[in-house]
């Protein structure tokens, strides 16, 4: 004969299994969302551009970053992690990717933004390849869910070129 605790145990275990299924369904429902993000970056100023004693180039930029990432928020989104990376090629590395700025967007309302900033993290090369370098400024994002699969994507903005000469 089933006792009180037997029934309670069966109910709790079954309810947890169903909860796991609910979370799986919620994550699956994210596949039906088609994000349509927009982004734009302007390099307003090259603040300084120098070569370190150890041979590495470094540049400091002031940028205007604007984006509308509202369409990627779903009911199952906890936050969106977004970062701007400078990408370029050197003889030594096929791809160099340097994170210049990042941010965490906690809600849909905050996902449409425009900021005026210098690079948060140092733009330093492995070597001395930055003079006159053509770079892409790529906005990457990770849509972090409340439960389940994380989606990541990017927008590549090309056409930027660093100065040919070092400057203060």
């Amino acid at each position, binding site marked *: 004969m089933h006792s009180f605790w037997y*029934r*309670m145990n069966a*109910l709790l275990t*079954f*309810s947890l299994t*169903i909860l796991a299924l*609910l979370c799986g369904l*919620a994550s699956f429902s994210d596949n039906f969302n088609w994000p349509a993000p927009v982004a734009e970056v302007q390099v307003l100023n090259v603040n300084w551009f120098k070569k370190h004693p150890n041979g590495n180039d470094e540049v400091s930029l002031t940028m205007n970053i604007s984006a509308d990432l509202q369409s990627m928020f779903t*009911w199952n989104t906890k936050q969106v992690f977004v970062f701007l990376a400078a990408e370029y090629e050197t003889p030594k590395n096929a791809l160099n990717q340097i994170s210049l700025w990042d941010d965490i967007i906690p809600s849909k309302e905050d996902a449409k933004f425009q900021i005026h900033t210098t690079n948060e993290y140092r733009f330093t090369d492995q070597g001395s390849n930055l003079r006159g370098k053509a770079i892409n400024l790529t906005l990457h994002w990770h849509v972090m869910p409340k439960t389940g699969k994380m989606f990541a994507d990017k927008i590549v903005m090309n056409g930027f070129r660093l100065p040919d000469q070092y400057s203060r």
Partner: protein
Amino acid sequence: MDWQGQKLAEHLMQILLVSFALGAFVTGYIVGSFQLMLLIYAAGVVLTSLFTVPNWPWFNKHPLTWLEPVEAERHPKPEKPVAPVGKKKSTKQK
């Protein structure tokens, strides 16, 4: 509770939990609130446990007919043997 009641309790528990889960998911998805889905489901779990776990009278509609004590009286339980003096022997009396 009795056997029928046990079966009823188990079925009721499964049906209620799945229904609350489905309702919670649909409501949460339409409104767009993950938290609402979890709240509805949690409320459903509590309600279901109140309905199906305790020994309610409606689970005892077909009570078992236990035998009368008469049969038991005809076969009285044997008396327990007195503990033997001296060495301990492993004697068990049925």
